[in-house]
C-alpha cells in the first residue's frame, strides 16, 4: 500500500490553521521539532486526567497503573531500537541530557590525561560542548573529523585520527544542518578496531533511519522524543549493559538508590541507577503513543515519501537564481539548508514567517559548519512526511516573490 500523505496529515490538526490572517501555515521546521499526532496528545491527556500517580513508589492502583504504562514504553523503545534488554534503555529529558550523561559518566570511567575523544566537524553544539568540557576536566584532547565539499565525513582522515589513545568517538547519525546520513556502521567498526567506545547522536537520525543498535553495534545511541512526534522533555539513552553497569551514576537522588545511610549509599540496578528523581513519566507515555504511531505507518514508507518530496523540492529550488545548497551528500534526510545570494537569512526568515512559512534561520547550533562555509547563517527547510508537494510549490513561489523585494 502506498503512502497517503493527506491521510497521514489528518492526524496533525495543528497543521490545518492560518498562522496570520489569510496565511496558511506551512510547517518546515521539522528538524527543530516535529508536530504531534492526536494520539500523542490523547495519551498524555488520558494519563493526566485519569491515571496520574507517582511511579515506582505508591501502593495504590494509580501509581501501579502509571508504573506499568511507563515501563511498557521502555519495552516499546527497547524493541523500536532492537536493544538486547530493557535495562539498556534510560529515559532522559532529551538528546542533550543523554549525551551529557554519557560524556560525564563514561568519561569518569575510561578517560585519563592525554587520552583522546573524536567528534566531527558537523556536530550540533550538544555533541561538541559536553566532550570539550570533559576533555578540559580530564586533560584529554578533542579531535575532529572534517567533512568534504558535499558535506560527507572524511573517513580517510578519521582513520588517521584513530590511535590507542582514542577512547571515545561521538558523531551524529544525521546532520541537523547538512542532512547527511553518516556511515555510522563503518565509523563504529573502525573505532572498535581501535578499542574506542562509540556514541551516536541520533537526534536527526531516529525519525528518518532504521535504528537497530545490536546490528549497528554502537555502544550508545541518544535521541529526543520530540523529534519523532513525541512530547518535548522526553529522551532516550541506549547504552550497552556491560558499560552502563560499570559507569558511575551521573545524577543522584531518590529512586536511583538501593540503601542510604549517612556513611554510604548503594545504587539501584539498571536502568534506575541513571533515573534519579521523579521522571517525566506523563510525557514518556506520550512518547509511547508516538512510537506506536510511527510503527503503524512504518518508517520505511514515511521516509520514502520524505525522500520523494526532498528530490522534488531540490529540483524546484535549484531553479532559483543564486540558490546555494549546503550539504549535497548522496545519502540525506529531508533537510534543505540554503542561502539565496544577496538575501540575508534573517530577512528571508522574517518575511517567510509573514507569509506563513515556519523555517529555521541562523547558525543552527552548529558554529563549526558556518565557519566551514564562511557564512553567518543559513535558512533551513526541514521536511516531514506530512508535508506536501503543494507546500513545496508555494514555498518556491514565495522565495521567488521575496527575492524580488531585495533587488
Amino acid at each position, binding site marked *: 500500500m502506498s503512502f497517503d500523505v493527506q491521510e497521514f496529515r489528518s492526524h496533525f490538526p495543528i497543521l490545518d490553521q492560518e498562522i496570520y490572517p489569510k496565511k496558511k501555515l506551512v510547517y518546515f521546521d521539522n528538524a527543530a521539532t516535529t508536530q504531534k499526532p492526536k494520539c500523542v496528545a490523547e495519551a498524555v491527556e488520558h494519563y493526566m486526567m485519569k491515571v496520574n500517580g507517582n511511579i515506582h513508589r505508591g501502593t495504590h492502583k494509580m501509581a501501579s497503573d502509571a508504573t506499568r504504562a511507563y515501563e511498557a514504553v521502555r519495552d516499546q523503545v527497547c524493541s523500536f531500537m532492537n536493544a538486547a534488554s530493557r535495562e539498556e534503555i534510560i529515559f532522559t529529558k532529551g538528546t542533550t541530557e543523554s549525551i551529557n550523561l554519557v560524556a560525564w559518566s563514561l568519561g569518569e570511567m575510561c578517560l585519563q590525561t592525554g587520552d583522546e575523544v573524536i567528534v566531527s566537524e558537523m556536530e550540533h553544539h550538544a555533541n561538541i560542548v559536553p566532550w570539550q568540557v570533559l576533555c578540559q576536566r580530564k586533560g584529554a584532547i578533542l579531535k575532529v573529523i572534517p567533512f568534504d565539499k558535499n558535506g560527507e565525513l572524511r573517513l580517510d582522515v578519521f582513520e588517521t585520527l584513530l590511535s590507542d589513545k582514542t577512547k571515545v568517538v561521538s558523531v551524529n547519525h544525521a546532520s541537523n544542518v547538512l542532512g547527511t546520513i553518516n556511515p555510522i556502521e563503518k565509523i563504529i567498526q573502525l573505532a572498535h578496531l581501535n578499542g574506542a567506545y562509540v556514541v551516536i547522536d541520533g537526534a536527526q537520525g531516529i525519525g528518518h533511519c532504521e535504528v537497530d543498535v545490536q546490528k549497528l553495534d554502537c555502544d550508545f545511541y541518544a535521541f529526543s522524543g520530540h523529534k519523532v512526534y513525541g512530547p518535548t522533555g522526553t529522551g532516550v539513552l541506549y547504552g550497552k549493559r556491560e558499560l552502563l553497569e560499570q559507569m558511575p551514576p551521573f545524577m543522584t537522588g531518590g529512586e536511583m538508590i538501593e540503601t542510604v545511610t549517612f556513611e554510604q549509599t548503594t545504587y539501584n540496578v539498571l536502568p534506575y541507577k541513571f533515573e534519579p528523581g521523579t521522571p517525566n513519566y506523563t510525557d514518556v507515555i506520550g512518547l509511547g503513543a508516538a512510537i506506536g504511531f510511527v510503527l503503524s505507518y512504518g518508517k520505511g514508507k514515511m521516509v520514502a515519501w520524505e525522500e520523494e518530496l526532498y528530490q522534488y523540492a531540490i529540483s524546484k529550488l535549484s531553479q532559483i537564481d543564486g540558490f546555494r545548497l549546503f550539504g549535497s551528500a548522496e545519502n540525506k534526510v529531508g533537510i534543505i539548508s540554503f542561502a539565496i545570494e544577496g538575501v*540575508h537569512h534573517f*530577512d528571508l526568515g*522574517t518575511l517567510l514567517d509573514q507569509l506563513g512559512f515556519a523555517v529555521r534561520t*541562523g547558525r543552527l547550533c552548529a558554529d563549526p559548519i558556518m565557519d566551514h562555509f564562511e557564512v553567518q547563517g543559513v535558512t533551513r527547510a526541514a521536511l516531514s512526511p506530512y508535508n506536501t508537494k503543494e507546500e513545496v510549490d508555494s514555498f518556491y513561489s514565495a522565495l521567488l516573490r521575496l527575492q524580488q*523585494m*531585495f533587488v
Partner: protein
Amino acid sequence: MKTINEVQDEIIEEFSMFDDWMDKYANLIEMGNELNDIDPKYKVDNYLIKGCQSRVWLYPTFEDGKIHFEGESDAIIVKGLVSLLLKVYEDRTAKEILESELYFIDDIGLTQHLSPTRSNGLLSMVKQMRLYALAYDRKINS
C-alpha cells in the same frame, strides 16, 4: 528640532498607512537601503552588538553635548530598524535619550512581529544606545 516623541509619532503615523505586514516590511527594507553604511573601519568587534540572527554595528561620536550615532546591519530589515532608532535618537543630548520612553516599537507592532530572540536584537540596540548616553552623561557631568 523635533522632540523624540514627535519623531516617534511620525513613525507611528507612517507605519499606520500600511495595512499589510508585507508592506510594512517593504518600507523597512527601503529605509534600510537608504541608510548610509558606516565607515568600514568602525565595523569591528568593539562596535558590534551581538544578536543571534544578524550583526549590528553602532558607532557613537560625541560633540557639543550631543550624541551622533552611525549604525549598520548585515540584514536589511534590521538595517531598517537601525534607521528608525537613529531617526529617534540622532543628535540628542544624553539627558534626552536617558529620559525618553520608546513607545513606537510597540505601537507599530514590531515587538509582536519580531519573535523574542529577534526583538532582543532590537532591544539590545536600544540598550546599547542608552548605555552610550549614560557613559557620556557621566563624563560631561563629572
